[in-house]
């Protein structure tokens, strides 16, 4: 059985982003880029399923500019078997991403597709659900536990009310929560090995997918800044301020 895992190159989660002065977007020049955090959980889970003997290959897909290949290499260094890079010159929307992934799935025939539950740049939280609907496969979103049995999967989902458990069948699209597992670090020998692993390249045109934009970004603004307040000396002062100044208790 094959597992497909998607990864996205995003601004590192520790970076305080800067909005461009002309409102055209967010500064990405000379900014540290990393793999989207829940995508690391997706890779880790795929590797664990493979290590348990239930899968024999883990294939990584990333869509983006040339440097997306670095993110694929990171995944290969963690232990994935090979990569697929779909090259685009600009950011594309989740709808187009889902269409590209559908084409890749038709070529690769995986049984399980693992994605991060959301990308921390555009925070859309759409791609996995779109891909599941498009393929007509089972859907398991926001997974914090995955138990693969023969032809079925039990998924624990993180929902607003707590945790929900569903049982469903393969093939399946699963989106991963950060609490799913603890992603491994790549060892030096594995980093060396990863350099020799194969990465296939396509363009959306090769796959026959129209990636034209449906949503126009008119402008990007900085949110209103909170001004730093005051330090209070003790609890009594805090309670007095909350009672008489802020009037919130």
């Amino acid at each position, binding site marked *: 059985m094959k597992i497909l895992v998607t990864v996205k190159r995003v601004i590192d*989660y520790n970076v*305080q*982003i800067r909005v461009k002065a002309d409102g055209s977007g*967010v500064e990405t020049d000379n900014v540290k880029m990393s793999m989207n955090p829940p995508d690391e959980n997706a890779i880790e889970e795929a590797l664990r399923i493979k290590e348990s003997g239930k899968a024999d290959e883990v294939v990584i897909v990333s869509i983006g500019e040339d440097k997306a290949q670095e993110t694929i290499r990171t995944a290969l260094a963690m232990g994935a078997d090979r990569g697929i890079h779909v090259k685009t010159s600009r950011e594309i929307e*989740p*709808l187009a991403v889902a269409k590209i992934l559908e084409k890749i799935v038709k070529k690769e025939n995986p049984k399980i597709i693992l994605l991060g*539950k959301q990308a*921390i*740049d*555009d*925070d*859309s*939280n*759409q791609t*996995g*659900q*779109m891909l*599941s*609907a498009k393929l007509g496969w*089972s*859907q398991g*979103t926001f997974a*914090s536990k995955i138990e693969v049995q023969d032809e079925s999967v*039990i998924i624990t*989902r993180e*929902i*607003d*009310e*707590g*945790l*929900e*458990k*569903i*049982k*469903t069948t393969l093939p399946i699209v699963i989106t991963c929560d950060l*609490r799913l597992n603890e992603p491994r670090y790549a060892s030096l020998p594995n980093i060396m090995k990863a350099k020799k692993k194969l990465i296939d390249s396509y363009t959306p045109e090769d796959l026959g997918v129209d990636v034209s934009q*449906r*949503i*126009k*970004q*008119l402008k*990007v*603004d*900085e*949110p209103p800044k*909170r001004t*730093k*307040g*005051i*330090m*209070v000396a*003790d*609890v009594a002062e*805090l*309670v007095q301020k*909350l*009672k008489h100044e*802020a009037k*919130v*208790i």
Partner: protein
Amino acid sequence: MRILVLAEHNNKELKSSTLSAITAASEIDENIEVIVIGSDCDKVNNKLKNVKLVKKIISVDNSKYVNPIAELISPIILSLSANYTHIMAPASTFGKNIMPRVAVLLDVAQVSDIIKIESSDTFVRPIYAGNALATVQSTDAKKIITIRPTSFDPASTEGGLAEIEQLDFSGDKSSTEFMNRDEKKSDRPELGTARVVISGGRGLGSAENFALLNDIADKLNAAVGASRAAVDAGYISNDSQVGQTGKVVVPDLYIAVGISGAIQHLAGMKESKIIVAINKDEEAPIFNVADYGLHGDLFDILPKLSSELDKLNTIQN
């Protein structure tokens, strides 16, 4: 224009996120219909009936919809989609799970988690954990939108007289079966809508120590929240997580205890009216967004805060 709002509920009670979605819809057009998909939902339908902004309620009531399985709900919405220009839902885990399925099958790019409506096709949504606000225009003929519930006041549930239309739907199937839900029941206000929230972070050190927060929460009628670090450490369950990948809260008063203030946490609470930070690290970034900061050991401060609140209550009584 005609708008369909997907109701979030638990078969017995309507979630206030639905009322927020109705308010958001009303900023686009007054032609608003709500679809309730569930099992034995009379109470939910009757509540919605009283919402003045709602013209019609479409009730799809069948025991197979007792749990919101995305693969079962999305075909129902799809089957009705031709009648509407906009389909909207709350950007809760419920709405997030379902709406992209509807969007992709209509070949529409969904606009997620909007916080403001500029016009019928232009919306503002936070990106990068709320560190930037994007104004976006949808060019698709139909708009599929999820709204951030805390950014829209809940619609009033008085004075309405909407008709309820029963709809039978057949032809859907799903191999997904619901097993169980581990729902944390609490007498405290709901985290997403509470007027006061007190949240704990890694600084609390253990699940037992969260009891210190519970004590204060009871005195302030507050909900208890947490940072991701505290949830990851197992101090408290996932439904309490506030932040980029948890819940967004906008209370009148947010008290952050032992939370350093990572960007991802701030994403979930920085719109709060008043923020209080209690932390032993004077350099903690949480102090940069706090209206009132108190530097010190939380194990020393929390008991004192508890007794100061008692004093206050005694005076008031």
